[in-house]
């Protein structure tokens, strides 16, 4: 029993991480109909920005309380990554919408490589994994095989809060209304006086901030960050967003948890063949797509001819 609970805990943490990444994918897709493949690397940049801030604080304000330290690390990550997101949107993604849609994908893929290689080459000792500080107190509660950690619970809850916050912003504010309007019909929204460019930038800032949070959370959870996590994390985030149904925040969350579940169950059910767990997970994704071609929570399928 305690073993199953432990598996659930791990799966939930993992799912939360994937969901946070997937929310970004789904937001960008909703507003601009594009897949921003560098999003996984954006997460990685977030954790490195946080680490840099931590180092800086550590050398100038070593006396700072942990709470403020965490806050500053988060702020630095969010600021850097939101700026990066807005820059990407303004300089690359909006201009590229004139070309074939796959171009955005290729361009963002290349951007991802540029980000990855830049960290590897220019961050101090960037080609090696870096220790990320735990920051939160490491109280834990042990019972049999179950090990409940205080910091994990805090991380999970704050992840949930962030998603709830995004949801509130989108559904309850004027800005959110404008975002939804643009997502529904760009031209009509512009006719109604919505500033398109502003909305795009705001969406990218929002989605990227969530990614920055995911990056810091990733660092605090694993206590280790490295430059290469972006590609796979991006692929998984994208998968999660698509499984759930693109353009739908609930779908992204659902997809994230499903993917984490698929990866964990592979190890639980077939420990003898644990190397095959990714084969199992991706096979399940293919089957899932064959069954629900537009994701579990389908987009409203009204198509103008």
């Amino acid at each position, binding site marked *: 029993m305690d073993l199953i609970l432990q598996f659930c805990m791990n799966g939930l943490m993992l799912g939360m991480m994937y969901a946070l990444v997937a929310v970004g994918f789904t937001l960008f897709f909703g507003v601009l109909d594009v897949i921003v493949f560098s999003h996984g690397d954006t997460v990685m940049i977030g954790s490195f920005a946080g680490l840099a801030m931590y180092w800086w604080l550590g050398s100038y304000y070593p006396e700072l309380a942990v709470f403020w330290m965490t806050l500053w690390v988060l702020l630095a990550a969010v600021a850097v990554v939101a700026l990066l997101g807005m820059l990407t949107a303004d300089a690359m993604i909006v201009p590229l919408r004139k070309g074939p849609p796959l171009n955005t994908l290729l361009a963002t893929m290349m951007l991802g490589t540029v980000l990855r290689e830049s960290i590897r080459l220019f961050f101090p000792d960037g080609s090696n994994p870096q220790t990320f500080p735990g920051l939160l107190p490491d109280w834990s509660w042990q019972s049999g095989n179950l090990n409940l950690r205080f910091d994990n619970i805090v991380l999970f809850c704050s992840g949930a809060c962030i998603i709830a916050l995004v949801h509130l912003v989108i559904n309850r504010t004027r800005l959110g209304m404008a975002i939804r309007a643009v997502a529904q019909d760009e031209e009509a929204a512009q006719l109604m006086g919505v500033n398109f460019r502003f909305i795009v930038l705001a969406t990218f800032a929002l989605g990227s901030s969530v990614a920055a949070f995911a990056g810091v959370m990733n660092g605090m959870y694993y206590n280790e960050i490295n430059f290469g996590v972006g590609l796979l994390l991006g692929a998984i985030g994208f*998968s999660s967003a698509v499984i759930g149904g693109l353009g739908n925040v609930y779908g992204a969350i659902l997809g994230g948890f499903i993917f984490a579940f698929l990866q964990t169950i592979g190890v639980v059910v077939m420990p003898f063949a644990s190397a095959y767990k990714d084969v199992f997970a991706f096979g399940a994704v293919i089957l899932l797509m064959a069954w629900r*071609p537009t994701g579990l929570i389908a987009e409203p399928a009204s198509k103008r001819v």
Partner: protein
Amino acid sequence: MRRMAVFFSGPAGCVFLALIILGWSNFFLRAEEQFPILVYMLLVVFLGFVANLLHLDDSFRASVAGHERLWDLCLIIVMAALIWLFREDHYNLFLLGSIMAYSIAVLGLNVQLGYAGVINFSCASFFGIGSYTAALLMTRAGIPPLPGLVAGGVVAALIGCVLLLPVLRTSGHYAALVTMAFALLLRVFLDVSEWFGGPQGITVQPMSLFGLDFSRNIVFGETELSFYLKYDAAFLLLLCLAFSLVRRVERSWIGLALDAVRSDETASACFGVNIMRWKITAFTLGNFLSGTAGAMYAMMLAYISPANFTFADSLLFLSILLLGGIGNIRGVLLATVFVVLIPEKFQVIQEYRYLIYSALVLLMIVFRPMGLLPRRPRVYSGGRA
């Protein structure tokens, strides 16, 4: 000046352009140092600029459009001439061989994505299935290389059929996910499966045709020609076959149907075009081409392992297609040269090469969003498609 423009819009334009390409590729392939490589790359930009200044670009375009057969012949001759120029240079012949292998695979991808609009993010996987099929059939079952080559294509097409249901039911980004999942899955599968050689891969027997062993150098008295020459000749033949096949498909009513399916499924269904049938045709044909190319590539490489056929490689194939201009099969050839050669030439900048290369591709996409040579709209009158 006007006369010059007229002159170059005739057949002379094709020949002249081909000569320039031949000369440039010859020297670029031989360039080893940082400075000449940079100079040659700038030279391309500069030549383009000069041609634009002299209004010659329009004449060349007209020349190529007006004399397609001649232009294709010129390209084949250029390739053959390059192969011959480097007859003793193993390394450059190997590069040319890789370029042609990738071109054939991307031609397959072009049928899927460029014509029928079927998204495929697992081109390298089908390329790899072709490689593995040929390798396993030859080593385990003792099948001769030529049937092995064909089997590579056939098995790739057959395994593609497994994916048909999800690929056909989904569209856009959803189809992208299905194929992406397949690419990731296949890589892991090959890695962990003992029977397929596992992570350390398997050695592949060389191609041999009518008693001619492809892995031996050709010796004429004093001179010794590289064995890669034979592979390149075979690749050139395959490429010509694949090219003319794809070209014929494009110009036939099949191509028309595929275009219709891509541009508007609903409308073409209303006019009685069977969407399923054409998507299946395009997907299978494309995978067949990729698989065949993979089988031949494996024989040239003599050793394959799962690390050659990752998701990143699939994205590489896709980027070739996008850079060349989706749907334009000549653009494919040009872009393959770019994508294979540039990172290789960037070896001189060592650990910075991928950074610079990706930045370069990024710039190209921003400045030429439709690819290097965008596909032109079909012309329905005048007998030319």
